[in-house]
């Protein structure tokens, strides 16, 4: 494993730090507390990391076996345009997740959980930085119609509500969202990075392995606190319940599934050699992995509640509770976490605006479905603009006033559009400064 580290040209590096000061003020806490929470681990580095020694041949697609492309021009216009959209979306997710995490970071009940998420945020900043490196180190103007400065400006100006993917346009309601987001949405990130490892565009492929190594911890920063919370819930701690975890899964999983793109899509990604799986295949593997995750959480809960149960007895008990909806020593299926049906609360893709409940039950009546959503989503989220707009669109679709395709395009309705840096109405993120001048 050999990694080349590089920093952005000063004006872009400063732009990222400027962005960090506004959107990620807790960043400075990380170096101050690094040794306490991550002793003897290499210091965090805000830089782009390129894996060296990767193969030079394209692994999949219509150019399989040919040399990996090293410039956007070598890709050809259509693939370059397609890849640019992927890089922009990836960059948007990295900066977007920091904006989301920051809102509720300080509410973490445990300092360790807080600093784990803080490290995740810093590494997401590095991933965003990595994507900017890909954008500014090569000439994309032939397909972007923009200068590099303008692309960076556009990405740094996105806010929760104006990001490319829906999952990054939802506010967090509590620290439960920080953790469930890491477990559910970062898991999609892992799939995307893994698929993009084969990318026919070499700089993008080289960016993936270092990001994937960091992503492994991001998933742990979600799953391990969830496991501990399941234990506490089982032991009767009233401050964290399995019901709260369940509702957060119901909020995030539908958005995670949609991050793979339409279930019938993904051909172009494979044809151009950008990814090695189509959308439906990757989404299906992801869903199965999420099933494993909640199965583990339920085991953690049951073993903590009933220490005398053997592993096999515990597994059988969970399976019986979920299939028969029965009761075991005061525990019911409602005390366990279940992954919602993959069609539940969808606004994009094949099941968009179908009314399917958490357990796959169909609904005919919009009001009944809205009541079902209200019973299964986090209470603070119900009062959000996002849910309101989804329900409005759903009503219009069911009344025949809007096609599903039109409704899909409406979501998300951009709440905030990007603008200039908030510290001045005139100053932009990317600015040329004489050497040594403060950013």
């Amino acid at each position, binding site marked *: 494993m050999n990694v080349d580290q590089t920093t952005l040209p000063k004006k872009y590096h400063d732009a990222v730090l400027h962005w960090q000061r506004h959107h990620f003020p807790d960043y400075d806490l990380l170096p101050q507390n690094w040794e306490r929470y991550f002793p003897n681990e290499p210091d965090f580095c805000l830089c782009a990391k390129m894996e060296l020694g990767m193969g030079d041949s394209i692994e999949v697609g219509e150019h399989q076996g040919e040399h990996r492309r090293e410039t956007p021009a070598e890709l050809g216009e259509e693939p370059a345009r397609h890849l640019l959209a992927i890089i922009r979306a990836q960059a948007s997710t990295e900066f977007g997740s920091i904006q989301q995490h920051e809102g509720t970071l300080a509410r973490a009940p445990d300092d360790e959980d807080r600093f784990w998420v803080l490290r995740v945020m810093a590494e997401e900043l590095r991933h965003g930085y990595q994507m900017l490196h890909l954008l500014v180190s090569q000439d994309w103007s032939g397909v972007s119609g923009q200068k590099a400065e303008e692309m960076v400006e556009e990405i740094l100006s996105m806010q929760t509500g104006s990001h490319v993917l829906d999952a990054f346009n939802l506010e967090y309601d509590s620290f439960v969202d920080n953790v469930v987001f890491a477990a559910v949405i970062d898991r999609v990130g892992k799939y995307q990075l893994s698929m993009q490892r084969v990318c026919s565009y070499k700089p993008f492929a080289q960016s993936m392995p270092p990001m994937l*190594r960091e992503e*492994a911890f991001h*998933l742990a920063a979600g799953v*391990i606190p969830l496991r501990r919370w399941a234990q506490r819930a089982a032991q009767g701690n009233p401050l964290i319940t399995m019901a709260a975890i369940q509702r957060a899964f119901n909020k995030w999983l539908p958005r995670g599934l949609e991050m793979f793109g339409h279930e019938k899509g993904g051909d172009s990604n494979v044809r151009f050699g950008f990814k090695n799986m189509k959308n439906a295949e990757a989404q299906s593997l992801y869903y199965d992995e999420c099933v494993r*995750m909640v199965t583990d959480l339920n085991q953690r809960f049951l073993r903590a509640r009933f220490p005398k149960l053997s592993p096999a007895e515990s597994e059988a008990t969970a399976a019986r509770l979920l299939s028969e909806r029965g009761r075991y020593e005061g525990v019911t299926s409602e005390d366990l976490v279940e992954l919602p049906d993959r069609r539940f609360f969808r606004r994009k893709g094949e099941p968009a605006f179908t009314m399917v409940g958490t357990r796959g039950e169909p609904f005919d009546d919009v009001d009944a479905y809205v009541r079902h959503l209200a019973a299964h989503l986090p209470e603070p989220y119900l009062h959000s603009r996002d849910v309101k707009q989804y329900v409005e669109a759903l009503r219009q679709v069911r009344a025949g006033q809007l096609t599903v395709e039109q409704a899909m395009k409406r979501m998300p309705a951009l709440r905030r559009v990007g603008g200039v840096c908030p510290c001045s109405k005139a100053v932009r993120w990317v600015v040329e400064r004489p050497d040594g001048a403060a950013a």
Partner: protein
Amino acid sequence: VATLSAAPHIRPLSELDISRIVAIDERLTGVYRPDVWERRVGYYLRRDPEASQVAEVGGSVVGFMLADLRGGEFGLEDTSGWIERFGVDPDFQGRSVGRRLFDAVVGHLKERGATAVRTLVGNDDGDLAAFLRAVGFTNAPLTALELRLAPPPAAAGSAKR
């Protein structure tokens, strides 16, 4: 009865392996200690997720080996890999699962520049020592020493209660 019809699939550790590692440890030691493994797996995933490997058969983890790369510890200036923990489900022992895990871990550590691999073995753990010698470990020019510390008086008192 567990069968091993195909070679186990060796892959890097992930956070979803915690449950199976806990289960294997429970079978080996008789003690259920998820909190210990949550902490250890979190630690190894932070440091280098590819340095630790698991063996899967039929989609289920049947063995694990947790390792990382260090340098400058105990006066050992060379970059060395350390294997801290490993375990193989008793139903799958004697089928080269440990050897395959070891090969994958050492391969990664070498790739990262390790010039030696080190570990510690309990004096009473003859099986483990035999396995390690079988894969090539020899006595190191080091002796493991320890000093047992008495607990503070208050803690000692409460422990007795």
